[in-house]
């Protein structure tokens, strides 16, 4: 197994395309977007049922990448997220088939 980094970004839906564009630009080897149902934070609670538009909902982006690419990616993402509603967490993972990342 190969040690990699996992970035989790929880972000408001309208800014998703912006984040993905950054990952694409940095040639991240891949990412997956997961839906969220509800949540709460400094901006108060939200939930899917309270939405008539997706502008207020969050999605989670999961990106597994090599540690060597971590800093550049976080830097670019942080800059974009400056004023946006988002949280970013990084953790350690081991992958099989390391050549994919």
């Amino acid at each position, binding site marked *: 197994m190969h040690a990699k980094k996992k970035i989790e970004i929880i972000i*408001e839906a*309208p*800014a998703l395309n*912006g984040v993905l564009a950054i990952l694409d630009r940095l040639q991240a080897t891949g990412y997956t977007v997961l839906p969220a149902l509800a949540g709460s934070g400094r*901006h*108060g*609670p939200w939930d*899917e*049922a*309270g*939405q*008539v*538009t*997706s*502008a*207020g909902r969050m999605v989670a982006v999961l990106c597994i990448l090599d540690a060597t690419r971590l800093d550049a990616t976080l830097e670019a993402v942080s800059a974009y997220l400056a*004023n*946006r*509603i988002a949280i970013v967490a990084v953790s350690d993972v081991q992958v099989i088939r390391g050549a994919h990342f």
Partner: protein
Amino acid sequence: MGALDLAVGNLLSPVVLFFALGVGAALARSDLSFPEAVAKALAIYLMMAIGLKGGVEVSRQGLQPQLIWTVLAGAALSFLIPALAYGVLRLISRLGAVDAAAVAAHYGSISAVTFAAALDALSRAGLGSEGYMVAVAAVMETPAIMAALLIARRAAPEAATGSVGHLLREAGLNGSVVVLVGSFVVGWIAGPAGVKPIAPLFVDLFRGLLCLFLLDMGLVAGRGLSRARRFLTAPLILFGIGMPLISAAIATAIALGLGLSTGGAMLFITLAASASYIAAPAAMRIALPQAEPAIYLTLSLGVTFPFNLAIGLPLYLLLARSVSP
């Protein structure tokens, strides 16, 4: 029908009653909720139905010369209302420049569901309307967003992100605009005969499905209200009710100038008076991320939309009557 009959008839229509049911359920903290996927599909359906109806009308009536003037007037109105709204907000409320600009965008843009409810009210009153009002609705979605961005750029240059061109492209290709305009064209091409086999879905079910959608809108508006109450200061509530009236007054004058029919004038006034709650919020999150979304969403969906639905529509019909031939 007199003014009172109109007002009461509107309040007792299923469309308004189901919206009230939704608001009531949300405020009482019922766990009732409408699946988001179905609400989204219903929104697409409503756009298709509205578009088809307009297109079929145009294929029946032919292209009328007012079309071009009405479209231009709509676009101008959408572009100018935000400046007015921004001024009013800065005058009467304590909103900062960025928040005020973001709110202003919503009032220049339009609410397609309010338009749908206006069509329902016209049906109840037995009135038709110019088919091309659908095109006017589509055209009015976007200019307000540009205007608000320009305002924010001047007032708080550091807050506005993203290019106007990029935003214009996004807003112009916005799903609801595409469906509205696309279905309008389909209805135009297919004509009355072509649309007949699909009328059971797009005509007969329109008012029932509008009720379903409004139940959901009520739930969402009620939930938004109970969560974001603290943002609703008295001046903002005043704005949420007064601004549609100001816009309606301006639109009434323009409708007179354009010589629209009663139905057409009523739709035009409604478009001006309605506030966006889909296209504008998404655009503002991208272009003005610093603006607090709870403010503009709650104002547009929690104050202005219910006001228009319950009280505005019969009022706008009266205004339209007063200026139409």
